[in-house]
């Protein structure tokens, strides 16, 4: 018996360990990419902990500064740029190494090398450079966050409201077309939205829902209502009818029963649905681009700012900004899925 449980335990921990590694490693690497300077993105093999400073070698040759950085790959100093223009040096330090210095500081530090000896010095890197750059590009970030929250909130409300009502009906009532209906509601997800995205949006534009958060929520809810209905119908049918009937026996009305008994039991499912609804609204940028270009959500702002850039580290920074609130939401919500209803007895 002991051996069996030992094996079981090992498998158990192995599974957990794999899960953790498979999820966290990519995620942390992504986080550290967001803090890389441009130079570090292309170092190979990279250290996983981002650099905090650079070792530089400055040489005064032919009336120009020979600027080199210590490369771990080559185990030697690598010549990067040769110039005497302080502006160019300042910009190079900023853009490529995330080092912020003024012209005066550079002049003061570098001119020591004019005496003929190569100068070795270390400059600290600004770890938050990517994030700062990001905010200087996007000047409406605050408003966009509010917009995202509103759009997501509406999506949750609409989806849960319409969806759970429908889900309850399907689970509890026998009516004509019930079998077909649950399938029909799901048909919405069966048709590729890509094909009808534009006609659907033009329709909303004509109704003056453009640039409103509720307009966005309407589009986001299209898929989510069906999803909610489907999930809640299976959750509701899993909730024992006897519990509800017991409550009627005790004098409660249908509505009271629904609110006090059924709904609380369905909370894990509802939470799951609200999570889908939230993420659908939060992460979308394409619909927002067409429908609400002048009143953007956060993910649209990030999409526009980063878009076709090949600066991976900046894209990573933007993505981290977008992920953080979603993570917080997930963190708060997860407790509600995990609540156990063990006390409910038949």
């Amino acid at each position, binding site marked *: 018996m002991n051996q069996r449980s030992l094996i079981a335990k090992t498998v158990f921990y192995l599974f957990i360990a794999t899960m953790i590694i498979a999820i966290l490693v990519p995620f942390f690497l992504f986080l550290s990419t967001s803090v890389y300077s441009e130079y570090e993105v292309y170092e190979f093999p990279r250290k996983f902990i981002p650099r905090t400073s650079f070792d530089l070698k400055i040489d005064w040759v032919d009336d120009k500064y020979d600027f080199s950085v210590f490369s771990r790959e080559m185990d030697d100093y690598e010549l990067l740029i*040769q110039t005497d223009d302080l502006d160019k040096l300042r910009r190079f330090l900023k853009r490529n190494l995330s080092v912020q210095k003024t012209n005066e500081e550079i002049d003061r530090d570098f001119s020591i090398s004019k005496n003929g000896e190569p100068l070795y010095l270390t400059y600290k890197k600004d770890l938050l450079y990517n994030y700062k750059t990001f905010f*200087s590009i996007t000047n409406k970030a605050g408003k966009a966050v509010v917009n995202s929250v509103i759009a997501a909130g509406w999506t949750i*409300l609409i989806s849960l409201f319409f969806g759970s009502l429908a889900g309850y009906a399907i689970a509890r009532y026998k009516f004509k077309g019930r079998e077909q209906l649950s399938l029909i509601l799901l048909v919405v997800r069966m048709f590729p939205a890509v094909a009808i995205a534009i006609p659907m949006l033009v329709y909303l534009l004509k109704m003056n829902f453009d*640039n409103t958060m509720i307009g966005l929520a309407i589009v986001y809810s299209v898929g989510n209502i069906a999803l909610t209905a489907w999930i809640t119908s299976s959750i509701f049918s899993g909730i024992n009818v006897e519990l509800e009937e017991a409550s009627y026996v005790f004098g409660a009305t249908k509505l009271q029963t629904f609110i006090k008994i059924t709904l609380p039991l369905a909370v894990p499912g509802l939470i799951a649905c609200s999570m889908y609804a939230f993420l659908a609204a939060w992460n979308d940028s394409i619909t927002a681009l067409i429908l609400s*270009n002048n009143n953007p959500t956060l993910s649209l702002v990030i999409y*526009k*700012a980063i878009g*076709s*850039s090949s*600066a991976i580290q900046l894209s990573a920074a933007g993505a981290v900004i977008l992920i953080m609130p979603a993570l917080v939401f997930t963190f708060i919500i997860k407790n509600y899925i995990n609540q156990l209803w063990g006390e409910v007895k038949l």
Partner: protein
Amino acid sequence: MYKGGKMKKFLVMLLVLSLVMASFAGCAKKEEPVKAEEPAKVEEPAKAEEPAKVEEPKTLKITSGLWSRPEEQQFIREEILPGFENEFNVKVELEVIDNIEKVMEAQKASDKWTTDVVMTHSGKMPLYIENEYVQPLNDIKDSLDVSFMDAFESATTEGNNTYYLPISADVYLLIANKKALPYLPDGADVTKLTWDQYKDWAINMAKDVGPKVSFPLMPVKATVYQMGGLGLSYGSEFPMINSAGMVDAWGVVGEMVKNNAILETSFNYSDPIEQMKSSEAWLSFYHMVPVGDIYSSAPAKYVVAAAPAGPNGNGSIAGAWGVGITAGTKNKEAADEFIKYLVRPEVLYQVAAGTGGFIPPVEEVIAQLGEEPKDIIMKKGLDTLQNGVVSGVPGSDYTDWGAVKSVYDTVFKTMWDNNGSLDQSFLDEQQKALEALEK
């Protein structure tokens, strides 16, 4: 049991809830139209130089496809726009997005013009002019006293009207990691290469260290332009696929493919930046903006040169970006002033140098170019533009340019799968497919 009554209560609750939601929707709707019509914002008097002005500063909105990279946007916002804002007391809002057509289409269809100034690529200008997204700029052009290169006139003008002023031009350039220099064939000068020498160079490297050429082949991106430049060097008319010159061009690339000189990972990229910066690749022939990006990341590591030459000259596809004013703008005066500001030689030079290293197509600016890395890129580009064989992108001659790109992708992939060889009948067949796409 008041079951009936409770059901009524439930329905009432439903109704109330819907009303509440609708009223929120109404509130939200009302807010936005007001915002759209009043771009004017009341600014705190931060721009203190101005003596007490009675009028509030207006907001000029620029929608651009140019400056897609965050560093460029940052540069424009921090170092170009403030000068204009201070001088004219106008606040400028810059928005850079990928697919401007959809936005323009929506503004035209709804007649709600929120964009005042638009930056368009030369390939799309005919479309914008035809769809009336932009208005003529004749008076501005006449009032200016800078001279523009006339290479892009066919795109920026229609009939007697000028709709765009070109502010940047781009061509394809060669870039090589200095580590590749030892592999140059005998007698070759990297600043004056022929395509034959380029090919031998690539093969020399392949034989010693493996494939080192980046030839970005991501579908529907730039395969057509790289091949187009090659074809022009051999006398082919862009974008013919089966002409004698083009066959020679395919042959040159085919040789490289056969000798494993081109990195297979090129299929995953739409530009050589990652492959070059990580040193996976040492050689590439590509659009000058990514080339400028690579070069300025470490100017001491790379060599940039004009496009290699074929029997017909240095061939390259060329494009330009122009600034125009939207048809329905409400800020015409501010827009006019902005355009005039942008084409001032000292401003335009800053823009060119601080962003991708485009060629500023204004004679007065060209005269100022020096020896800094970006200037060097610009000069090489200029060299190609003025002395090479260039062609624009005839996007408006075809029903769908994306489909044209796809044909090129098909040909290249077939050549790759056949280890570098293509037969004439296949090329003829693809040419027919191309012609079927002509308008």
